[in-house]
């Protein structure tokens, strides 16, 4: 039996699928508890339903992108392990990078099925787990203290900078990626050569323009219902633009 056959065997699917099913149940528990509590404390159920719809539509396309990460890793690690890692805890940008680094640590020249052995796989899998668990470990020990402190600061009537800081942090996140795409185009193939990958910039522009159209519909034409689909719609347009730009 080849290594890939072993990594794609029924017991592997059972182990990984079992963990994913557990996390899915956890998500359902958190969702139901939050919805019920929101109702009990008098929150508008329409707002909560809109949150569910917008979050679901929002997550569809990035999830398909993540599925591609599973496909990319399945050639060397089999399907069940990348399926587990990208459904639970993993991050698209992280998994390939760490799997590659872990493969080098166990003596493989590259992450590939041709060089993979059972021992190398179990070592890579453990290293991938150990590298990424720390956010969860921090949550176990510090989430309660940290969120209590944040709530206490809010109640104490200290200046209401919290919301502005969170918005600013998010703007910082978006700006980092925008800067990266601009830098990629300008200097990817040498400083100021302006012949790097331009498609992300086209995608950014198209997606932003379509979002501007949605905002116009919401604010000027009072079509509030489109808000739940505005991000997904803008993303589809941006991704279509990438396909068209790729054909040029």
């Amino acid at each position, binding site marked *: 039996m080849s290594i890939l056959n072993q990594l794609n065997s029924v017991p592997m699917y059972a182990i990984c699928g079992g963990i994913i099913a557990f996390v899915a149940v956890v998500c359902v528990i958190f969702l139901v508890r939050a919805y019920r509590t929101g109702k009990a404390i008098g929150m508008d159920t329409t707002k909560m339903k809109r949150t569910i719809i917008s*979050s*679901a539509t929002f997550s569809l396309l990035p999830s398909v992108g993540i599925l591609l990460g599973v496909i990319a890793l399945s050639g060397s690690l089999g399907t069940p392990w990348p399926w587990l890692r990208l459904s639970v805890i993993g991050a698209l940008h992280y998994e390939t990078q760490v799997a590659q680094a872990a493969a080098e640590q166990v003596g493989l020249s590259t992450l590939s099925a041709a060089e993979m052995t059972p021992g190398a796989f*179990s070592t890579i899998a453990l290293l991938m787990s150990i590298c990424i668990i*720390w956010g969860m470990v921090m949550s176990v020990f510090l989430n309660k203290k*940290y969120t209590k402190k944040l709530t206490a600061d809010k109640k104490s009537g200290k200046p209401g900078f919290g919301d502005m800081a969170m918005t*600013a942090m998010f703007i*910082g996140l978006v700006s980092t990626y925008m800067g990266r795409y*601009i830098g990629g185009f300008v200097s990817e193939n040498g400083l100021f050569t302006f012949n790097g990958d331009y498609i992300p910039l086209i995608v950014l522009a198209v997606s932003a323009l379509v979002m501007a159209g949605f*905002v116009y519909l919401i604010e000027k034409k009072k079509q509030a219902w489109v808000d739940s689909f505005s991000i997904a719609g*803008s993303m589809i347009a941006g991704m279509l633009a990438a396909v068209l730009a790729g054909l040029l």
Partner: protein
Amino acid sequence: MEEDKKTAVWDSYTRKTHVIGRIVSIITLIMLVGAPFLIGGMLGAYPDLGAVGKGFLSVGLVWLVSSIAEFLIYTPMLGAGGGYLAFITGNLINMKIPCAVNARDMVGAKTGTPENEIISTISIATSSLVTILVLAIGVLLMVPLQPILQSEVLQPAFENVVPALFGAMAYKYYRKNMKIAALPLVVMSLLFILVPSLTGSTSFMIIPSGAIAIGVAYLLFKKKNAAGSKDGNTQES
């Protein structure tokens, strides 16, 4: 009386969220770390702990620092329940954070309030369930889907999911906060132009970029407050 009841419901919810959050995080941790040993036993080769240790020192320490920063930065955005869930389910930067921030803004919830906590938990739980579902369907239909998803024509689309997401988010956030956005955008663009190798550390560059944005926001906040109190004093006199 009604308010007391709501407060009691909320306190009980928060308390139980921490209990459930901690228990499920610990169970998930045990399963994730235990799975490689279980699989190793099944394949007849346990993990090489020496190689894991060396590997952790060479690649894991960076992620340890990154995880601490992510926890400190994102937990205030996510709240207690959302925080536990997001760190269990992953994909924070490319999905959970934008998703929760978008939901929060759509309903106008404020950081640190019960409404924010509920909305962000609902948002992250829904988002995680969608990912789990899409991936499960994708894995089930891997054979027929693979040629479509990996077709050369569609590759640029899937390689650009993140720019598509951030283009839309940038318009939403920049239009109302151009003063906050200008400096981090210029600084980040210059850095990535002048030091192209930084592309490999994009997720770490979020920290200085966020710090610049928060610094500018704080100055604007102070300025606005000072102007407000000046106006108040003028009116009083």
